[in-house]
């Protein structure tokens, strides 16, 4: 299960717009994609699940994927969401 640790760069945290971009990007992949934060795990294809993590700016999140296109999903999400998520830490 490929994983990537990222730091949320957006000064408002993972708020509605970037979370929505996340859902849209993740939904293109067949794999199960999750974000882990603060002891909780959320389905990256669900806006309500992502917003429920209440991810604050500068926090660390783990992006993980499991499935046939897991590696491609992690790579694509890290690239496309770089403006919000910052560089892998």
């Amino acid at each position, binding site marked *: 299960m490929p994983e990537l640790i990222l730091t949320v760069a957006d000064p408002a945290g993972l708020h*509605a*717009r970037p979370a*929505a971009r996340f*859902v*849209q990007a993740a*939904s*293109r992949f067949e794999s199960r994609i999750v974000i882990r934060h603060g002891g909780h795990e959320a389905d990256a*294809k*669900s*806006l*309500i699940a992502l*917003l*429920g993590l*209440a991810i*604050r700016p500068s926090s660390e999140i783990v992006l993980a994927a499991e499935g046939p296109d897991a590696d491609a999903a992690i790579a694509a999400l890290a690239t496309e969401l770089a403006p919000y998520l910052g560089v892998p830490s």
Partner: protein
Amino acid sequence: MVGLVLISHSRSLVDGLRDMVAQVAGDSVAVEIAGGTDDGRLGTSAPRIAIALRAALAASPDGVVVLLDLGSAALSLDLALEELESADRARVHVSEAPLVEGAVLAAVQASVGASLAEVVTAAAAAATMAKLPRD
């Protein structure tokens, strides 16, 4: 793709909500609004709702989710739904979700090409969504 119809007593409310939905979900989802009365007062209008429903149905092959505010909005919506052909009415789902949160969640779900049932489920989650960060 699934489309949305947003109904409110206030035209400005649904006007602003449509902008907000477009910014969060992108502009691929058809969002039609029906706010206020025919003469621009606060209230709801069955004919305006019917127009919005028809436009959303025409633009959304996978169906339409309707979100509304309160009181007579439901009554006017019922009248508007009665004007539709039964095949069209069958493609409309009326959501109990709160208008603002439901519209945002539904639109994002619709934007990824989700089915009508999936969009309805996403909107329904708005009723219990947490807004304040948990400690």
